[in-house]
């Protein structure tokens, strides 16, 4: 499919009724918010996300950083849960609960930055390609097609390995391998919007390309991009955890992936340290599920024909 020159109509374009509405940016927001609250899975996802984000923001208040300093903790090594340590301890005697709470920050931040980068790159390329057309479009879309054909994880692993371990490499690797979907989506949307009268009028009145893109096209692209980003954050978090687990992350960073990576390195599975293994994995599961449910609910609202997932 990558090399197939697919016509624009094959792409997931927002339905006609939506596109033909004038770009009153958030028209019907209220109605949509109400609709969102009628979807139990979406609400569940949203609640999960609020809790998770709150945890990430307030982690330093809940868990003092000294609790993560191995030279200052005095817990027993790899001890099962007790009253003092509800999720047991790691090898250095730190509370696993503290680690997992603190890990929320890093895991979430990497996922969000990687997604932001993905979306910015994808939107820019899609917008430019859709707006200018001609050889610019052909070139950009050809590149997009080529990149889509690349296998994601092997490319990300190679990139991260070549760039050197660390969170920056992981973020770059994720962005490089996942901007293509957004680019295609935005291009199709741009084409649909660009053909409409108010854009034509703006051009006729002498608006520059930049102004047209910023003021007229971008606003109609933003909602759908935001919705797909919600789903992309879930992907990015999973990918980041996977790359970290494979040893491409910063080993000093406390993230869910790195906790599992050190658990594997220390043989925690066979040491029977289930309390060390289950919480980080469940945390990833919950966050990814939260973003997925939320994203799918939003998608259904933006484009009812797509999801029907409730």
């Amino acid at each position: 499919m990558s090399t197939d020159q697919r016509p624009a109509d094959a792409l997931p374009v927002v339905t006609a009724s939506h596109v033909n509405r004038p770009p009153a940016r958030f028209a019907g927001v209220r109605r949509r918010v109400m609709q969102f609250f009628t979807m139990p899975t979406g609400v569940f996802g949203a609640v999960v996300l609020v809790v998770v984000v709150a945890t990430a923001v307030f982690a330093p208040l809940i868990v003092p950083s000294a609790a993560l300093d191995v030279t200052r903790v005095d817990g027993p090594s790899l001890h099962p849960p007790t009253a003092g340590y509800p999720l047991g301890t790691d090898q250095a005697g730190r509370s696993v609960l503290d680690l997992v709470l603190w890990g929320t920050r890093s895991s979430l931040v990497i996922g969000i930055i990687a997604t932001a980068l993905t979306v910015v790159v994808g939107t820019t390329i899609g917008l430019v390609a859709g707006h200018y057309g001609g050889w610019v479009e052909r070139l950009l879309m050809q590149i997009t097609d080529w990149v889509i054909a690349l296998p994601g994880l092997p490319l990300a692993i190679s990139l991260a390995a070549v760039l050197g371990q660390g969170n920056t490499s992981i973020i770059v690797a994720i962005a490089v391998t996942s901007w293509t979907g957004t680019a295609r989506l935005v291009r199709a949307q741009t084409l649909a919007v660009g053909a409409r009268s108010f854009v034509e009028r703006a051009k006729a009145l002498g608006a520059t390309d930049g102004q047209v893109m910023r003021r007229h096209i971008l606003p109609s692209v933003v909602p759908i991009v935001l919705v797909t980003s919600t789903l992309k954050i879930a992907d990015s978090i999973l990918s980041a955890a996977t790359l970290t687990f494979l040893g491409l992350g910063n080993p000093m960073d406390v993230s869910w992936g790195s906790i599992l990576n050190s658990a594997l390195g220390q043989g925690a599975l066979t040491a029977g340290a289930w309390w060390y293994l289950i919480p980080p994995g469940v945390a990833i599961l919950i966050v990814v599920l939260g973003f997925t449910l939320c994203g799918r609910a939003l998608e259904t609202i933006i484009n009812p024909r797509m999801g029907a997932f409730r």
Partner: protein
Amino acid sequence: MAASINDDASLAGGAITVPPARRGRRISGGYLLRRVLLAIESFLVTLVIGFIVFSLVPSDPAQALSRAQAVTAQQMADLRKDLGLDQPIIVRFFRFLGNTFTGNFGYSWEFRQSVGGLIASAIGPTLLLMGCATLISVLLGLWLGVRSGWKPGSKFDRFFTGTAVTLWSVPTFWLGMMLLVVFSVGVGPLPRIFPAGGMSDPTVDPSGIAHILDVAHHLVLPCLTLVAVTFAQNLMIMRSSLVDELGNAYLTTARAKGLRDSEVRRRHAVPNAMLPAITVIFLQIGGLVGGAIVTETVFSWPGLGLLVYNGIKIPDLPLLEGTFVIFSGSVIVFNLLADLLYRVLDPRVKG
């Protein structure tokens, strides 16, 4: 979740890109040729991208490789020469191209063996694992997808889409670790019922039925891991494809003709929904290789993924490069097949 990093393998049902329906098209020689040429072009570009990635950072592995062993300065210089590091970049590129087309892929830094040989010995296990997992995951996903999509919102639908989305949100490596703990390490009174890693037990006669059973025994957990995290995609694709068909007038017509519900589903809805679904599923098979890397790592399955994992540490660029070429090639081949498959099959004929 490895597969998720590939955009096309995203679960986002709404983002499914379904090629436009064409009516009664046969594959003409011209089309076939054009399509194959496109695939070759794509592969060449992949090679260039691959080479660029692996040449991004100038690297002198000779220093690293000769560490912790007694070597003389002359040996170091020879090693650099053997690895081709003294050549200008353009020469290295053409050497890389030549290597790729001869299936040689250069010389692994980590293993000190030809990458081609390493890949040759690892490709079989990967094909076996991927083949089994894909087959089960596609069958299971399609079946559950049809059942869920026919009556969206039913208990069945809610249960299985819920399960699927949950499993899809689980990191592959973590699920593998959990299965390993439960079934190989043994939890509490539970016995250890599956081997913890590898592909065969060397004490079992390496030929005959005993060997096949032994491999099957080793295959269960990695296969289960891959199926669990990938069947969700197939389910969701099939489901949303079928849901799309539900409102169509031809179904109402069919019902009006007096056909039973199950017959309407079987004869009309499913065949029409199946085509786009199968095509998309085919497109995603290539994306599954990512899952194989993680699964093979957790279960020490001696395939390409394990090679990749072993190559990360140094990093062993020729090995990563070689496996990258193989993975890209397989994605391109599957894309080509999906495209041709779509041309051969046509839904509307029977609709």
